């Protein structure tokens, strides 16, 4: 375990050099939040009314939370580096090192996104307070929410890795990353699941957006212990299934790997 802590530390230190790059992303974050603020201001003509069970403030906080998750988890390591490692055969060179490549990549990813997450969290809270004002939030719920966020990030990383593992079999896995991106943006960021037509809702609850964006954001704006339990059970199921799938794909992929330049 200590070795992964070292990897985490090493990437964290490295990432500190790029804090200014993270700050540049603020602009697009703020523009998006502003657009949704206008949209919901327009849709809620009466500020006290509810849409799909959400008040206007909750709706905007929901978008702020999902955008925060989106911005802080986007990371090229899981997409570009893994794809490159597979395509160039570089992944093979990690095989004879005494660590697991998959855990190494996930650890590295966390080293990279943790600073991003902290910065975006501060920005999100500040933005929320300025544009909307505080929502009903009980600090006692915080530990539960942290667990759900952490699992959300882990599952997201695993799904990204599964998509990148496709590079073992096909020329280019980026179209699948693109599809996943769009799914998260369209279904998981803009509206809570309750806003979608009734027949779609059960389907959406089976998609990754439920465990990655909807679940954590929903718990921030409207915590209840029952929904926490449901979300965490689904997350654990997701975690188990995706981990197994990832391990199988990796093992199978590595076996058929040809390293160029032999």
């Amino acid at each position, binding site marked *: 375990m200590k070795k992964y802590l070292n990897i985490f530390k*090493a990437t964290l230190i490295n990432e500190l050099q790029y804090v200014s790059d993270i700050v540049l992303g603020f602009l697009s974050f703020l523009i998006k939040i502003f657009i949704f603020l206008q949209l919901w201001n327009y849709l809620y003509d009466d500020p006290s009314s509810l849409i799909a069970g959400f008040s206007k403030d909750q709706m905007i906080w929901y978008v702020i939370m999902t955008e925060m998750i989106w911005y802080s988890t986007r990371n090229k390591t899981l997409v570009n580096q893994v794809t490159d490692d597979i395509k160039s055969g570089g992944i093979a060179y990690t095989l004879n*090192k005494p660590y697991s490549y998959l855990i190494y990549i996930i650890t590295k990813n966390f080293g990279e996104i943790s600073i991003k997450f902290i910065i975006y969290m501060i920005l999100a809270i500040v933005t929320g307070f300025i544009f909307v004002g505080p929502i009903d939030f009980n600090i006692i719920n915080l530990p539960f929410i942290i667990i759900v966020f952490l699992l959300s990030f882990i599952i997201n990383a695993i799904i990204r890795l599964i998509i990148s593992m496709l590079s073992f079999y096909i020329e280019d896995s980026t179209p699948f990353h693109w599809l996943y991106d769009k799914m998260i943006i369209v279904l998981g960021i803009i509206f809570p699941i309750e806003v979608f037509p009734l027949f779609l809702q059960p389907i959406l609850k089976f998609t990754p957006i439920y465990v990655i964006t909807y679940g954590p954001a929903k718990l921030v704006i409207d915590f209840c212990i029952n929904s926490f339990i449901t979300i965490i059970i689904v997350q654990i199921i997701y975690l188990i299934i995706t981990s197994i799938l990832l391990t199988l794909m990796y093992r199978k992929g590595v*076996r058929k790997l040809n390293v160029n330049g032999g």
Partner: protein
Amino acid sequence: MNNVIEVKNLSKTFKVKVKEKGFIGSLKSIIKPKYKTIKAVNNISFNVEKGEIIAFIGPNGAGKSTTIKMLTGILYNNKGSISVMGIDPTKKRKKLAYEIGTVFGQKEQLWTHLTPYDNFKFFGAIYDIPEYVVEKKIKEFIEIFELSEFINTPVRNLSLGQRIRCEIVASLIHEPKILFLDEPTIGLDPVVKENIRTLIKRMNKEYKTTIFLTSHDVGDIEKLCKRVIIINKGEIVLDDSMENLKYHYLNKKIIEVKMKEKVNLDDKDGITILKDKGYNLKLEVDIKKTSISEALKLIDSDKIIDINISNVPLESIITNIYKGEK
């Protein structure tokens, strides 16, 4: 029985997709892809003893790197058995990792944004070495490999020679019993090359590390190795000691003469004229058939300006073996 590496009947084939020419060919290959199998390594067997420095050489595409990759657990073999330190590399990779070190000249394993010092600490942690041991090791290596000048410069800012030295150190942190070097001196200048060779020799002497080396640089092989395995087209064509290799092929001498006047010579039994440019002559003498003095008798000694008698260089010996001539 002091073998640290045992390879028996090892084979490796690759499947390569074959595409026909043009657009139609591309369409065909989508519907019904055709594959061609390439034998990269074909039924090779050899052993390496503890403490040996062995050169594993061959022309491009001969299967050297493929073999080294199978020995280090990077590639899976199709047939045959490998045992490195008594471990099957494909089955117990992680266990093997603690026993061997690898340096691939064309592939960096250091983290480029970290300094060598942080890299070494990092590698130490990966191999579960206690921190105080790593510190001690680093201090030792700084001295041996003369790293003090750039130990705190990020790896991406180092020159190639400095980087390679750090790569070797990084692969030695966990005190491997065998060190695999795949073209460690590629792209280096003669001074740095010499430097690295000395270091490799020292590692071998002081730590009894077995060295398994591939290189295209004849100097590396000549100065470091006592034994040579030559592989060509996936098969071992020669497995012999350096001395034998030289002795066996050194029954030929090259005589280069510069003359005052133009001379005309004819081929004689055992003497071949390689070059005849009037004033400059180059002769190859087969000393099994004739002697140097016989050859010199052909030349009028009063008219010689300069003369040079030399062995056939190792480089051309190896080239001939690659080409399949004996």
